[in-house]
């Protein structure tokens, strides 16, 4: 439809050729993830499958490490929504990565309570130790360093979230040791303060 009297009524002015770049390898859920997806979709009314877009994207990201255009296409197809709908969501939420990230994503909280307790120094230590600026991934694809907004652990500031695990009450020295530990022991080094408390009591 036209928006101006001089425009032809039937002309199509929306001629954008923009398409999602066909980036990344072909994507399909593994059978386990597909089963999980089918389970998750049941939580929402049958005509509201779109609600499952966040969990569906998490599954894709856990499977592949980041969200590619192919993953977006796959998720959109399963949910019966457009790719643009999915990309809209992916680009809004900070926890989805559109580019490859390292095996360990170090996210340092930079908001008030952490900053009051020296989060800037923790970030600087990590930057020096890893030779990275905030937002970068090292060439070997092991570490990505990010500064993020409030993680909700203000009583245990400063806090670093490594992938999905919290490491709390971090001094610069702790952060340095954490990097060494991750290099040496891999995922086994991922424990948060609260888990330690739990073990001590349980």
């Amino acid at each position, binding site marked *: 439809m036209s928006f101006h009297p001089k425009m032809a009524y039937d002309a199509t002015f929306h001629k954008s050729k923009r398409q999602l770049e066909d980036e990344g390898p072909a994507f399909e859920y593994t059978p386990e993830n597909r089963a999980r997806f089918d389970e998750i979709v049941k939580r929402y009314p049958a005509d509201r499958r779109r609600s499952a877009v966040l969990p569906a994207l998490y599954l894709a990201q856990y499977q592949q490490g980041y969200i590619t255009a192919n993953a977006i296409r796959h998720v959109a197809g399963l949910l019966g*929504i457009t790719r643009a709908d999915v990309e809209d969501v992916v680009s809004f939420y900070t926890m989805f990565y559109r580019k490859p990230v390292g095996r360990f994503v170090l996210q340092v909280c930079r908001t008030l309570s952490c900053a009051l307790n020296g989060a800037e120094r923790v970030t600087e230590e990590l930057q020096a130790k890893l030779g990275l600026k905030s937002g970068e991934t090292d060439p070997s694809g092991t570490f990505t360093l990010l500064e993020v907004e409030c993680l909700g652990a203000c009583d245990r500031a400063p806090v670093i979230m490594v992938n999905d695990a919290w490491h709390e009450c971090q001094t610069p020295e702790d952060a340095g040791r954490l990097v060494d530990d991750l290099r040496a022991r891999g995922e086994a080094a991922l424990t*948060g303060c609260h888990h330690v408390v739990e073990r001590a009591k349980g």
Partner: protein
Amino acid sequence: MDPVLTKFVREPHSFTLDFYLQHEGYEALKIALGKKPDEIIEMVKASGLRGRGGAGFPTGMKWQFVDKKIEPRYIACNADESEPGTFKDHLLIERNPHLLIEGCLIGCYAIGAKTAYIYIRGEFFHVQQVLEKAIAEAYARGFAGKNILGSGFDCDVYVHRGAGAYEAGEETALLESLEGKRAQPRNKPPFPAVVGLYGKPTAVNNVETLCNVPLVVKNGAEWYSALGPEKNGGPKLYCVSGHVKRPGVYEASMNITLRELINDRAGGVRDGRTLKAVIPGGSSVPILLPDQLDTQASFDGIQKAGSLLGSAAIVVLDDTTCMVWLAENLLHFYRHESCGKCTPCREGTDWLHKIVRRIERGEGKMQDLDMLSSIAGNIAGKTLCAFGDAAVTPIVTTLRHFRHEYEAHIKEGKCTLPAAWRARHPHAVGAH
């Protein structure tokens, strides 16, 4: 007051169903299922329970407004705890998830809903696992699902994981996110109680609010309202962080003053420093000064003092805290978290941050101060949700009380605060 909500948080297995059942767990649900839904709503109204998420709106009223003529109805539990300084819901879910589940079930029964969605922020992955395990336990023992405890009442409880958006904590943005869209707020009215999730009547309640519901049902409205000052009844969780000796979650009745919370509970200002200012309710509320410490830490008490209780996130600032730096830090947060729907907030937070950053680095001009006030005035009250008002608060409140610090930054080209700050933050960016 003895702790009620956090009574068992230090017990090793407080999150298990067995432990919960040994300590009167799901008793309130049994009582509730024996009453009529309207009686529960009346009870919650009589108790004076006010929403713990920030606005302090009476929960019973919210439930009463839910349109009972339209099916289905929903409860959306707001566990997107993202307000800087807040960490109480984290503790409740991690250590006492069944209390929340019980609260959700009673809430659903009261408003006639058959589904509760608990929207938990994406960063709470470890807590989410605890909660999902607890829900599975509840299903296995017949406390959730079909025909709960043989009463004929069906109710499902699901966890929905967010993905990193502060704005999802706003009730309508939460519903949008739950529907699989960007977390951007809707215009109000209509309120969620009438047009909510999937366009159906929905009650959106905070975690702590729903955790209070079983207490009301079990112990009665009178017991509950007697726990605090008038219209501010019940136990309250306070999150104390910043420059204190013992940061943490403290439970108290709302008779307590800020001074008692900071000095007696949290051990006072650390490193022998003195108090400069207090943020009493999360980063979105005006700061209070040391001479206002004897304010009662209740919804009404703090409001009288010129601020808001908000999510009861008390951030303590000592005398080495530079207020311009503080405003810069918080504006960085708001600039990043603005959802982008309303132009004044999307553009304005970026402008405010750029200007404050330039002042903080010692590159500001005097006219920048008027520009800050002017931009703030063009954001506040001109956005769909309260984010706009929240985002300008750090600027407005620091400019009101600490204008001289801004002026010093501009005149001196650097911060003029004690060297101790420098010692603790040797590599800090900016003029410090």
